């Protein structure tokens, strides 16, 4: 039996143990979050190496900053994903690059070939980018947090400063677009 009502705070429980020096908790936190962090950075930047650098850096930042996380003031996921978003802002400022979703189509084509080793990967890369371009900025951000990083609505609400109700309605619209774009894959 899966206890989802407990799972919602599992990340916070792990980070509380991590703050006490629990190495196993730190490792579990890493295992849980690295794929999501990488996916989030990759979807935004389109570059494998940049996604690797950022997703490695965020865990090093986590070790530096974890003592400042106060579990009584909110869940860990919101705190973590705010750091991820801030890192992206800093990356764009420092590198003067544009987000992947703004790349012209021919650049996306070239990058698909460079970044993805196999045909399926390239197809998926192009499909996701076409889809991202069909979203406005707010929808794109919600999509990356909910469908790529799988952040719970409560935390997305804190991150974006919008009510959960509004987010769920927006997510329904995105879901409709996903169905249209990706057809029978849903």
């Amino acid at each position, binding site marked *: 039996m899966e206890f989802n009502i407990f799972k919602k705070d599992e990340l916070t429980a792990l980070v509380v143990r991590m703050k006490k*020096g629990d*190495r196993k908790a730190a490792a579990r936190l890493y295992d849980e979050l690295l794929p999501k962090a*990488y996916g989030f950075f990759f979807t935004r930047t389109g570059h494998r190496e940049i996604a690797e650098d950022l997703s490695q850096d965020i*865990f090093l930042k986590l070790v*530096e900053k974890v003592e400042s996380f106060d579990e009584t*003031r909110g869940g860990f996921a919101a705190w973590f994903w705010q750091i991820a978003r801030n890192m992206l802002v800093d990356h764009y400022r420092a590198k003067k690059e544009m987000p992947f979703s703004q790349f012209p189509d021919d650049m996306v084509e070239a990058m698909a070939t460079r970044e993805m080793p196999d045909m399926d990967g390239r197809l998926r890369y192009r499909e996701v980018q076409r889809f991202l371009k069909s979203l406005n900025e707010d929808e794109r951000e919600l999509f990356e947090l909910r469908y790529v990083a799988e952040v719970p609505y409560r935390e997305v609400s*804190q991150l974006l400063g919008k009510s*959960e109700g509004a987010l769920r309605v927006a997510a*329904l619209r995105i879901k409709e677009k996903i169905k249209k774009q990706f057809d029978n894959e849903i």
Partner: protein
Amino acid sequence: MKFNFLPSKEFTRAAKQRFLAVFGAHYPAGAAVSRTIFIVRMFAGALAAAAIVLGGVSVYADTANVPADSPLYSLKRLNETVRLAIAPPAARADLQASLAARRVNELNDLEEKNPASAAIPELANDAGIAVRASIHDANKTNLMDGALTHLCTKLFSAIATSSITMQNVVENNPKALAHFTDECEGADVNGAGGNSGGEAAPAAIAPEQASSGPDEAGAPNELESRINDYLQKHPIGGAAAASEDSGSLEGNSGAGLPGSGE
């Protein structure tokens, strides 16, 4: 459908090693406490417990780390019984939650060290009793919102990281589980709505539920109305300001979430 692109195994492994190495540098493993120091501490605890019984003096004894298979474990439990007996009603629920968390940790440790230990079923039963008692005391003192959420968070944290045995304890006590659902989910509607990947959860609001009802045109359904009502009365503080904040990266002990720029 999955939208996340996954990192390579080589990168994942190498990055994990780097992360754990940095973690280890920040949190060097604590030296094992020698048995002599332990026994001295526990005798001090036993004397303190005896003073409580004889003199009615309230003393805190450091018994938190005595494992369930230690010969001094019964003294630890005695100490807890005394603390519970003298705790004021408003503090009992929180104390029960701490003790429930402690039972869960003891159970996890014992299962790791000696999975065949005969003490495991009894300890699991004690853990279940402590969990129910904490909810019961919370009901009796009518804890509201923040205090109840804090209590639920503490219990969730303990049980979420617990072993299969502990989860079986809760599974075999459906009333305790129902209590969690009613009391703890109800105390924090944000928490009740939180879910990842669309998994169904008791009393949580799964995306499928949110999309049911006459809301295809975008009008919020009854559940969403309740969420919005709750959020209007309990606005999330600092989120909007924090999202525009370009100041230094601070922890969440400030007004809101970390800002960018560090």
